[in-house]
């Protein structure tokens, strides 16, 4: 029995060691007071607003920086921020901004017209001494800018090459956030890891793959935030993020997976939801095959049970879409639009009128991708609905990058329909890039289904050139009515962003822009 004695002794030793180790561990997973710990979905690429493209990074940046303008709380309408007011020339090509006085960057340098000019020149002028701190993938947001001039220290003038109505809302987008020229000069290509802006929080530290810490900026022009600090933790795996929230390791979690929502129904948690400027749709090939007939396109809109998709497949994390413009653009959204009702009989009737009974369709589905929600399950549900009205659908599934490589050059000769989703910051962007005749793939646009309606083209061109928001709203509303009737797409869903906060967090709400604004949030 000597052998067993030996192991018993070893077990005892191991057990004691474990017990000692355990007793040393603090069992409380509570996060500190006044410090908000946010569970993010990924490590940020950089904290330089001009250099990043991901919503994940924007969540941090919006708290570190301010832009000239920003979205009014709870809307996608522009209001003053670092600029207190602005004038637009009658032809819509010259914007003159008056800047806010006495604002300082976190590094102590002054915010003024020179700083604004520096920011846009850095992004747009390849000869600028700090253009090498890029690349700046979203600089085309501002490609309409011809020049940025300093009128006086607190006035700056932008000249555009043509009237471009989305300009102001592009300035409110993170790409337009203003960075400290001194900090860029000091850190060069490492600026993205040593950020300095004017925002409500200033940069604390960045521990790779662990956390980005930002601290309250007591000198912020809107007053100091209530929190002392915010810690952004990258937790890529959604299950692990959920477990951290349940274990109390984080106070706030973004992008809760639909299957985990029920875990946060009870006391102790608040579930936040907010529909955003997102639309999930099917591109229909209007150039050839059954969908070249408008009746078959409408039939597809009637045949697909969108309620079932948003409630059952997506567990209520999306709303049924009525048209090409998401309702989050409240000022430009046509409220009189009703989504196509689920009506398989009507669909069958339209299909037989068009003589498309039993038509075979090729359907491009992606495995996943930015804003695509649950594309495989949604694609399968759609296939079944179309099958039920007599259309035989063959699904072809692609990995996201391959998928984009197939869909963006156009569906001609390859497929009849494809999944797609867009998230934008202005009602102009998506229809302008994906519904105009001038936006067909061979002309460099995203109109992969070759929809063409000269009236829609006219409305979109006019809306882009107008600087009067009411006028623009009217044009977009007319456009939506026509497009819904023409049905170049099947309008499926508008994604609702969600987040969970623990009961220690108060005064938080999600924004339709999907940005995470924390300057008013409190924790006790």
């Amino acid at each position, binding site marked *: 029995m*000597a*052998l*067993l004695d*030996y*192991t018993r002794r*070893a077990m005892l030793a191991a057990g004691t060691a474990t017990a000692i*180790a355990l007793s*040393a*561990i*603090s*069992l409380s*997973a509570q*996060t*500190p007071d006044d410090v908000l710990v946010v569970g993010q979905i990924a*490590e940020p*690429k*950089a904290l330089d607003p001009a*250099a990043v*493209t991901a919503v994940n990074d924007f969540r941090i940046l919006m708290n570190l920086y301010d832009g000239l303008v920003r979205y009014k709380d709870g809307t996608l309408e522009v209001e003053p921020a670092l600029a207190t007011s602005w004038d637009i020339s009658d032809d819509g090509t010259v914007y003159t901004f008056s800047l806010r006085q006495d604002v300082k960057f976190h590094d102590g340098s002054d915010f003024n017209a020179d700083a604004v000019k520096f920011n846009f020149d850095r992004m747009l002028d390849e000869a600028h001494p700090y253009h090498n701190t*890029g*690349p700046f*993938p*979203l600089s*085309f947001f501002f490609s309409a800018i011809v020049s940025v001039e300093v009128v006086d220290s607190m006035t700056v003038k932008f000249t555009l090459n043509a009237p471009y109505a989305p300009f102001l809302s592009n300035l409110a987008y993170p790409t337009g956030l203003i960075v400290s020229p001194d900090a860029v000069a000091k850190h060069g*290509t490492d600026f*993205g*890891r040593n950020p300095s802006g004017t925002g409500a929080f200033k940069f604390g530290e960045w521990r*790779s*793959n*662990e*956390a980005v810490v930002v601290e309250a900026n007591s000198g912020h022009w809107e007053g100091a935030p209530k929190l002392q600090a915010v*810690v952004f*933790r*990258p*937790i*890529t*795996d959604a*299950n*692990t993020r959920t*477990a*951290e929230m*349940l*274990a109390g*390791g984080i106070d706030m979690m973004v992008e809760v997976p639909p299957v985990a929502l029920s875990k946060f129904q009870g006391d102790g948690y608040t579930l936040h939801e907010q529909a955003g400027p997102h639309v999930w749709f099917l591109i229909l090939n209007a150039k050839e095959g059954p969908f070249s007939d408008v009746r078959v396109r409408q039939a597809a809109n009637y045949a697909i049970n969108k309620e079932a998709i948003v409630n059952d497949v997506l567990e209520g994390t999306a709303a049924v879409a009525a048209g090409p413009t998401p309702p989050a653009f409240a000022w430009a959204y046509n409220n009189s639009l009703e989504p196509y009702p689920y009506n398989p009989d009507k669909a069958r009737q339209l299909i037989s009128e068009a003589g498309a009974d039993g038509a075979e369709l090729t359907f491009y589905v992606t495995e996943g*991708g*930015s*804003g695509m929600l649950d594309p495989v399950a949604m694609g399968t549900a759609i296939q079944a609905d179309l099958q039920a009205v007599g259309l035989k659908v063959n699904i072809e599934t692609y*990995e*996201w*990058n*391959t998928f*984009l*490589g197939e869909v*963006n050059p156009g569906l001609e000769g390859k497929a009849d329909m494809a999944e797609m*989703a*867009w*998230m934008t910051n202005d009602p102009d962007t998506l229809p302008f890039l994906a519904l105009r005749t001038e936006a067909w793939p061979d002309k*460099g*646009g*995203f109109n992969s289904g070759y929809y063409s309606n000269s009236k829609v083209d006219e409305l979109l061109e006019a809306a882009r050139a107008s600087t009067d928001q009411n006028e623009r709203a009217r044009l977009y509303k007319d456009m939506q009515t026509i497009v819904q009737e023409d049905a170049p797409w099947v309008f499926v869903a508008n994604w609702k962003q969600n987040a969970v906060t623990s009961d220690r967090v108060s005064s938080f709400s999600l924004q339709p822009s999907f940005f995470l604004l924390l300057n008013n949030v409190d924790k006790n």
Partner: protein
Amino acid sequence: MLGYILKRLLSAIPVLLGISIIVFLIMAMIPGDPATAILGSYATPENVEKLNRDLGLDKPLFKRYFIWLGNILQGDFGRSYSLNKNVIDEVIERFGATLILAGTSFIMCSLIGICAGVLSSAKQFKLTDKLITFIVLLGISIPSFFLGMMMILLFAVHLRWFPVSGMWPIYGARDLTALISHLALPASALAVVATGVIARLSRSAMLEILRQDFIRTARAKGLDEKTVIWRHALRAAMVSILPILGIQAGFVLSGAVYIEMVFQWPGVGRMLVDAILKRDILLVQGGVVFVAACYVIFNIAVDVAQHLLDPRIKA
């Protein structure tokens, strides 16, 4: 001996060159380029072309390979676009975290696996043996990522004995206790399968030795069972157990990828997964080449150790 080591090191060079070519070609062939991954919906041909130019990806393939290889030979692995950081700094930092995880796990599975195998062989067909064989089979059959999630649910969410994820506490001291508490769950989850494999193979290696004449002699001359098993039999069996440990070390290292994803361990496996998804070509290439080099060197070390342990194995 020195000649043997030198020869093995020289033979590693074509292996590493081959790996560099394969990983380079794979990254060039997989659909989607960094520009498309960065731009997402905004990937117009025009935007993609401009960004590719900015990223230096517009040169021909073979030219890019030789520029990259030339730079690596001078110790320059390039700059990761997705992390905005030098590749080699990131890889070394992350590889350190992986070594801590995989190393702990490897020590756990070697010790427990060998002990279980020895115990099992010494008590062949007795209850202890059957119990151990059953547990081992169970361990081998559970996928480590699933086990990891279940461990999180039980030990971190319900019992709250250990933190859910990460390597260090967000607040508080970064000392050994903090590290151990973060390490306990992932290292155990990672060790389970390898423990099972080592236990099984140790058991059969031991059984073979226990049937040999010198063991009978040892018992006949009155040595106690403990000495016979641990000093004589295990020592002889180690010659066949050691290569198993070498293979399992590789297994633990590659298994760390899943575990690092589940436990958000900031290791090189998670780094590579993120880098592949973001099409961060230089980071993937640099990471793979670095890990491959470490693995090749580790294998040479195991061979050398085996050579030292049993001089009959010819160089």
